[in-house]
């Protein structure tokens, strides 16, 4: 495995590659192509952290935990609550910040604060020719030239190998609380989440577990901020949602954090057999997805718009979702299934042609994670 320690070495490694490269961060996200392993984990460290400007510039191989600990020390955080996939995928290793960007990993706060791509303000990467490219920078507002920053987020190493990433940060809240309603049907739960998200009370998490920790359905709505504010909003949300059933407010910090980490990382599926799918639709279509697929288990996040499904091994759920706009990604599956079913949702032909065209331009030799995205 090649493990360059600098961006220049990384560029040399790509330029000198004789064949396909399998780009790795911490190797925890289950995305790997065939080819010689090229790890970015050697590119570590903080380039710049300016708490007064809510700005972080960090090398791609830096562990996510290191970044989060450093930000917490200053009362700040990454806005988008990146998912840790180790539990659901059964992977080991140390998740890197570059891996987060390459997969645009975003957690429950995505509905309020945006995805990883929305907080990402700059990148440096090595394209398939071995050229070092920068785009964006370290300022929040920047429309200078094309936004390759967004293009790189979620490109899974197929357009270039990230060497450095920059983020806009947010202050960490003083407290968080969670309004919990038990026993709702999926459709009622999504209606309740929509009502909460359509309120002025700044909901930062909206999830529904048809099978909660104690086996009963539970609907979760999170508010974060200054203590007085959170207490006020949680109360107003309870009143707003009274028609859906009785609710309680959980405000123990450890329990709130653990509950949302459980949702974020889809820990419910960690020890259960089956393939895992991630379906993105408009929130009111979430229950339709579950009804159409009939999974072993489901978890709704993003107000119902992100549906995690646990289904029998080897089953292609996409044909059953025809007619529901959105996309389905196969997150966990065995090799035989992978060989048969594409990880990413097939794109309409003209869109697929654009994506293929971009990959061909950024990686003319087709050596960067070939086949991972099509």
């Amino acid at each position, binding site marked *: 495995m090649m493990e360059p320690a600098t961006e220049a070495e990384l560029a040399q490694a790509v330029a000198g590659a004789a064949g396909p490269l399998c780009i790795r961060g911490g190797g925890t996200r289950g995305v790997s192509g065939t080819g010689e392993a090229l790890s970015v984990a050697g590119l570590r460290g903080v380039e710049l952290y*300016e708490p*007064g*400007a809510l700005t972080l510039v960090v090398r791609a191989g830096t562990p996510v935990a290191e970044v989060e600990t450093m930000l917490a020390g200053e*009362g700040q955080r990454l806005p988008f609550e990146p998912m840790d996939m180790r539990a659901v995928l059964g992977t080991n290793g140390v998740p890197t910040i570059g891996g987060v960007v390459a997969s*645009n990993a975003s957690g429950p706060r995505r509905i309020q604060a945006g*995805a990883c*791509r*929305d907080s990402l303000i700059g990148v440096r990467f090595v*394209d398939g020719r071995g*050229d070092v*490219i*920068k*785009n964006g*920078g*370290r*300022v*929040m*507002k*920047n*429309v*200078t*030239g*094309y*936004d*390759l920053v*967004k*293009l790189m987020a*979620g*490109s899974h190493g*197929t357009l270039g190998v990230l060497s450095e990433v920059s983020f806009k940060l*947010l*202050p*960490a*809240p*003083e407290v968080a609380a969670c309004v919990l309603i038990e026993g709702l049907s999926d459709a009622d739960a999504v209606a309740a989440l*929509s009502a909460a998200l*359509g309120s*002025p009370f700044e909901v930062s998490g909206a999830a529904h577990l048809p099978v909660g920790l104690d086996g009963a359905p539970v609907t979760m709505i999170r508010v974060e901020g*200054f203590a*007085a504010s959170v207490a*006020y909003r949680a109360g107003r949300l309870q009143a707003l949602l009274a028609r859906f059933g009785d609710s309680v407010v959980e405000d123990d910090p450890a329990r709130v954090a653990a509950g949302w980490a459980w949702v974020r990382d889809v820990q419910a599926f960690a020890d259960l057999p089956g393939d895992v799918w991630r379906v*993105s639709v*408009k929130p009111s279509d979430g229950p339709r997805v579950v009804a159409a697929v009939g999974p072993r288990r489901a978890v709704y996040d993003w107000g119902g*718009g992100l549906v995690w499904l646990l289904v029998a091994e080897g089953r292609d759920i996409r044909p059953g979702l025809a007619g529901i*706009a*959105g*996309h389905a990604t196969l997150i966990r599956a065995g090799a035989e299934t992978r060989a048969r079913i594409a990880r*990413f949702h097939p*794109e*309409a032909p*003209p*869109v697929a042609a*654009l*994506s293929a*065209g*971009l990959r061909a*331009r*950024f990686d003319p030799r087709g050596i960067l994670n070939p086949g991972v*995205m*099509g």
Partner: protein
Amino acid sequence: MQMPRPDAAVIGRKAQLVARLRQILPADAVIDDPTETRAYECDALTAYRCPPLCVVLPADTAQVSAVLRLCHAEGVPVVPRGSGTSLAGGAMPTEDSVILGVARLNDVLEIDLPNRFIRVQSGRTNLSVSGAVESDDFFYAPDPSSQLACAIAGNVAMNSGGAHCLKYGVTTNNLMGVTMVLMDGTVVELGGAHLDAGGLDLLGVVCGSEGQLGVVTEATLRILRKPEGARPVLIGFDSSEVAGACVSDIIRAGVLPVAIEFMDRPCIRATEAFAGAGYPDCEALLIVEVEGSEAEIAAQLALITGIARQHNPVELRESTGPEESARIWLGRKSAFGAMGQINDYMCLDGTIPVSSLPLVLRRIGEMSAEFGLDVGNVFHAGDGNMHPLILFDANKPGDLERCEAFGAEILKLCVEVGGCLTGEHGVGVEKRELMTSQFSAADLEAQMRVKDVFDPAWLLNPAKVFPLAASAGRRG
């Protein structure tokens, strides 16, 4: 302003082209009379103008596709145009180009409150998008100053911002999907009412591509519930440095105001003379606005004013009601008009790291003396997006050139301190040649490769964004 030499062969075929366009569009949707096309000779960058070959005003996606297919087949450049409010010349035509205006695409197609989106045709104005959901207490967050006139198509092309993006983000953070027509007439759907791309984030690179990758005809936009209330506080300081330090301290304290606006003395004086908002006569002032319930607003403002007091403000005026809020915003909203009363001005748009604010303001002051041109600063301080307004006299020979040279120096300074040339207005023709100060040849090449994929013949808005020398080989 240098523009590529127009294609004489295309100009020579104008009559045939107009006749063909009339076959595919309603009669009143093709304008070729030189008097009538005059309105399309420039956008809000009025210092530069050029008559287009002709203007087309299609009314739906199919018509846009037909026009582009024809122009593609004929090798005719097309310049897309929203409402023509670009400050960067993004919609400026060339003599051999067809202006494709989306003004007639102005319908609301779908409002979905439970799923919190609205789908509109792209010619609809920014403010009227919010207007369509206002009675339901929802709004569309990006609010560029020109929001009364500017079209969503232009917002998407330039990735427009506004005063409230500190909290809500800019266009790209609120854009969920588009229907877009490629130069060869192909219609593509990117994104939709769901969140995030299923493959490469093409929507992300289309937003802010200045009309060079495709013509957006429909957009799905995120809408948000209005906050319970909002209130500003005005804080005056006797130095810009101290005002800058106060901004940083507010952000450090964990408050996230919806807006932090900054004005310096020249701007304060000009707006006072123009609008009489009752601003203090001081070196710098901040307007900080927060949102929430009454109690939440009071708590946040108490925190902010507590921080401000540590910086010995010369004035601290907390709004107590809607009238006072309106007065506090009045001066800020009148700033551009007020500066325009004094003289012609050029508005810059560079962004800098907030920590560089004092240095950059001091250097701009020094350069103002060197160039002999006055400058006022009014900008979004929370995100470092500056808007220096350089005053000049368009009737005085050499003044415009001096102003442009001064502006270029300011923008280079923005890049030097770690910022960028443009925070929300776009590159257009205005900052095209400065791109090499921010980007290496490889950086620009990577961006141009994206255009190669979407528009291989480089017919869509070709002479924008990239330095002419850099794009010469591609423009044919």
